[in-house]
């Protein structure tokens, strides 16, 4: 089954993600396996734009991850790198939220929103 489960995970069922907003507020949410960070953010009303709807045509879902989770991820594709290069406040652990899919290795991932969104 290639699609993540629907609906919000029950208590203890999902993986934990902590989003850190621009003003420092930390929001903890739960995700199913296979959901992208962007999907989870939208489902939990977290204010992240995804102007191109995950088609790798913008950099508005740019997130800065904690280094431990970042190292567990696969290398980004060339297309993702092209878009990431245009993002504001690019860090060593930056990724596009629409390309990071949750699994049990990433449980507890911390994703920080960059201070400003820029599209080029």
């Amino acid at each position, binding site marked *: 089954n290639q699609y993540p489960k629907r609906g919000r995970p029950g208590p203890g069922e999902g993986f934990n993600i902590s989003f850190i907003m621009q003003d420092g507020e930390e929001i903890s949410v739960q995700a199913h396996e296979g959901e992208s960070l962007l999907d989870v953010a939208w489902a939990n009303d977290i*204010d992240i734009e995804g102007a191109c709807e995950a*088609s*790798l045509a*913008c950099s508005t879902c740019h997130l800065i991850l904690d280094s431990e989770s970042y190292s567990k991820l696969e290398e980004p594709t060339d297309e993702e790198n092209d878009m990431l290069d245009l993002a504001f406040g690019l860090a060593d652990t930056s990724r596009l939220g629409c390309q990071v899919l949750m699994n049990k290795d990433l449980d507890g991932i911390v994703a920080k929103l960059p201070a400003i969104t820029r599209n080029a």
Partner: protein
Amino acid sequence: FANGPSFEDFVSGNKKLSAEEALDLKETVVDQQEAAEAAAANPGKPAKRPPKMRLPEWLKTPIASGKNYTRIKKNLRELNLHTVCEEAKCPNISDCWGGGEHQTATATIMLMGDECTRGCRFCSVKTSKTPKPLDIHEPENTAEAISRWGLDYVVLTSVDRDDLADGGSTHFAETIIKLKQKAPQILVECLTGDFQGNMECVARVATSGLDVYAHNIETVEALSSYIRDPRAKFRQSIAVLAHAKKVKPTLLTKTSMMLGCGETEAEVIHAIDELRKADVDVLTLGQYMRPTKKHMRVHEYVKPEVFEKYQKMAEERGFKYVASGPLVRSSYKAGEFYISNILKKEKQLGVPVVGNDAVVRLADAGIRV
């Protein structure tokens, strides 16, 4: 009910605001009070994000419904046509499609599908790296449908197709040629993309027989890299407009800008000056409205008086006509503005302003201005 809440309980605040002050507020009084109370109750916690701005009165539009609206929607689906009105969630849809007592309905047809290869932060048209292939029957079907509708003025637009070698310019030009063959009396306006700056493609569309060539710069130069797709650039867009004029000097060129994205007055004036330098004839200014939560927030709801101020400034700088207002969009009442302004000028000068027989014919036919 006797002991229940009364109207007074729902009306908030002890402060009474004058109408002026109410319009000046970026947040409602309720939100400000709530924010202050929340901050006081939770010392040490970072302040909550600024509460959402309420939509000002001048931007509220009715929900689309009615006979004309449903008929047009049905028509379009049967013909497999898309409109930017629906895809980009335009607030004027009930106004334009509903028609009115004396108005005919207008719709802006969007060619080449409903999936765009670009992801601009203000636009809710679907984005895809691999949109569906072009429908080879679209030019014929669109031209046939429009010629049967008996319109005087039609606006055609398209999505960006960076996946195609010619950016879709041949398909677009073909639609215009066919339309002019079937119905030469219709005035055609085209709102195109920038074809990634490929001037051959621009020329192809510009020389296909249309009357008004439109391409939107969307915003001021300073914000272009923030809100448009990376492939779209301010200077490139200006070059497109200049080139269209160059290959066909009798063409009217038109552009549009959104306000309320965070630009300053100086930046707007700079953009207007650059447009005039490229000999752009028509300018429209409108308020950016956030189409969905997945798009850019509105920075500011620009007041109608400011729109009027920009209108005067632009007219002084020599645009043939300027439409400026919160709900104005690139093709909003495009036909009516075009005809009424050109005809007005002709009356003033006594000679045709744009060498277009169709305009004179319309005036002879007594088209209401």
